[in-house]
């Protein structure tokens, strides 16, 4: 091995993909590069992202220029929307076509949609290793087929590998139930992969614990690598100009903000009911506002019922700012006084937003089930105001406490909040693992 170890990083979603997992992938590749590793990324093509997920070109500029990116073509027939490409069988008997397609998908690897990528991916990994021997592979799921590139180099050349789960494979992180039974092909494949892995990473402790019980022999090799927040965000906030995409500065009242995709799991109506109660009974100062930024639903066009719900609360100062570009996120945060974290239920679910919120040092109002994994992250944050329940009076009480914290503007609390948040910087999540792996591959 040279003094600069060679990391092969395998991730389906990598810039310019705009899927949620791309930030973790980007940060991991850059962090290893910054720590002195040579980094080769195996991912898929821009065309695949354009067809299936959408792209954010600005993300490509954030990839360290010394990271070598190899792109492996990927097709996803079940997601094809051009009807002209459909076979007669697909048109005439769609259920039969779907069954046959699923069988074909799962033949090489038990993951619908992605299984057929295994051969090309493994071939590409072998080629990378042939031209420049790899010291460590990190594969990031989902999709889980990326683990196969790691396993191939491990079996054939003894290269150690890390499995980085963003969510989970056999566990449904929303319901807490199993997605695949213990004797399923997925569970058996996972057991084999985990048994040989040097490390297995998870985004939060509840998911790690579940897997430690599932694979007790590998528990000591399982680690939490939380998503964290990107240090560039706070710099951008410090220099953020007044922005038309951020809430308007107000001279009276407290400006509350919510930023993130409002999925159907987000308790929007409960938040708005609590807000109305807080404004109506004077729990928050007169003139206070609640600005909601981000997509309403999964599509670019807002879901009408969500938009209408926010519009119906305009009389109490609620408004919708529309989607906020990645480049404008810091401006949004810079121009609110307090943040509202509204999340769906799930003890295994940690929103990436919770880390961004922490980085602001602002009061945070939690409007979610207390059992949500985000509560574990926020526990101990000095400006955290969790609603006891989603009932309007409890949401209003939490908003009132946060408003008082804003009005009091206690420097000591703000400083303590920023100190607390510093532990959740994304690079600090990765640093111990990078150091441990450097030692491991040097042996």
């Amino acid at each position, binding site marked *: 091995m040279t003094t600069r170890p060679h990391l092969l990083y395998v991730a389906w979603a990598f810039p310019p993909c705009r899927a949620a997992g791309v930030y973790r992938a980007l940060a991991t590749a850059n962090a290893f590069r910054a720590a002195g590793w040579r980094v080769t990324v195996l991912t898929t093509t821009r065309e695949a992202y354009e067809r299936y997920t959408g792209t954010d070109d600005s993300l490509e500029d954030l990839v360290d220029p010394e990271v070598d990116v190899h792109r492996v073509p990927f097709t996803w027939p079940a997601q094809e*929307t051009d*009807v002209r490409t*459909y076979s007669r069988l697909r048109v005439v008997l769609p259920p039969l076509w779907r069954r046959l397609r699923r069988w074909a998908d799962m033949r090489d690897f038990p993951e619908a949609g992605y299984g057929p990528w295994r051969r090309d991916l493994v071939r590409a990994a072998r080629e990378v290793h042939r031209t420049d021997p790899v010291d460590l592979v990190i594969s990031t799921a989902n999709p889980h087929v990326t683990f196969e590139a790691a396993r191939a180099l491990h079996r054939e050349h003894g290269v150690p590998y890390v499995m980085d789960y963003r969510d989970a494979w056999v566990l449904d992180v929303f319901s807490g139930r199993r997605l695949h039974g213990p004797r399923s092909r997925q569970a058996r494949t996972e057991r084999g992969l985990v048994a040989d892995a040097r490390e297995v990473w998870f985004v939060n402790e509840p998911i790690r614990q579940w897997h430690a019980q599932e694979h007790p022999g590998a528990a000591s090799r399982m680690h939490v690598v939380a998503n964290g927040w990107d240090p560039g965000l706070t710099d951008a906030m410090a220099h953020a100009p007044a922005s038309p995409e951020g809430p308007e500065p107000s001279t009276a009242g407290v400006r509350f903000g919510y930023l993130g995709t409002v999925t159907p799991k987000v308790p929007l109506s409960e938040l708005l009911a609590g807000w109305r109660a807080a404004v109506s009974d004077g729990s928050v100062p007169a003139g206070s506002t609640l600005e909601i930024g981000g997509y309403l639903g999964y599509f670019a*066009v807002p879901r009408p019922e969500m938009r209408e719900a926010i519009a119906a609360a305009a009389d109490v100062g609620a408004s919708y700012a529309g989607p906020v570009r990645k480049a404008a996120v810091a401006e949004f945060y810079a121009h609110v006084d307090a943040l509202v974290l509204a999340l769906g239920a799930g003890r295994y679910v940690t929103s990436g937003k919770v880390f961004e919120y922490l980085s602001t040092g602002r009061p945070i109002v939690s409007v979610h089930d207390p059992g949500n994994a985000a509560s574990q992250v926020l526990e101990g944050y000095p400006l955290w105001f969790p609603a006891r329940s989603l009932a309007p009076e409890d949401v209003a009480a939490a908003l009132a406490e946060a408003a008082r914290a804003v009005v009091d503007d206690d420097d000591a609390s703000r400083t303590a909040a920023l100190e607390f948040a510093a532990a959740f910087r994304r690079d600090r999540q990765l640093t111990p693992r990078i150091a441990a792996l450097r030692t491991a591959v040097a042996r």
Partner: protein
Amino acid sequence: MSRAVVLVLGRPSPDPADVAESVASLEAAGASVVVLTHDPLELDHAPVHVLGDRPQQRSSAPRPVRLARLALRIALRRTAAATLARAAQRDPAARDALDSAAVVVAGDAAAIETVWRAARRLPASTPAVTGVPAALRALRDLPA
């Protein structure tokens, strides 16, 4: 350039709220929308063209053989989809709408055959897609 979109629905009793959301999305992208469907549907904005009656489905399939039930279900779906496709070809107004569309979109799986058949006689430059998100992308990519 025309931004007429024909949204074809094949599923039984489409939810008016869902359809309204799809239509609103397309209209927000600058499209004028015509809806083709089997079942009568009340929409505030877009014209709805009903293509004859849906074939009657039996309320229950023969019990003993699961495979037979599956085959029957597929056959009924197949009949409904084919009936819609044939009706769209025979109905002059529907045919005109499809022939002058800038984008043709299947709103559900049962409408795919209709769109697939229409696409065979439309210019190759006319996008024929499934799903509203794909239709929105197609609209975005249309020449100005």
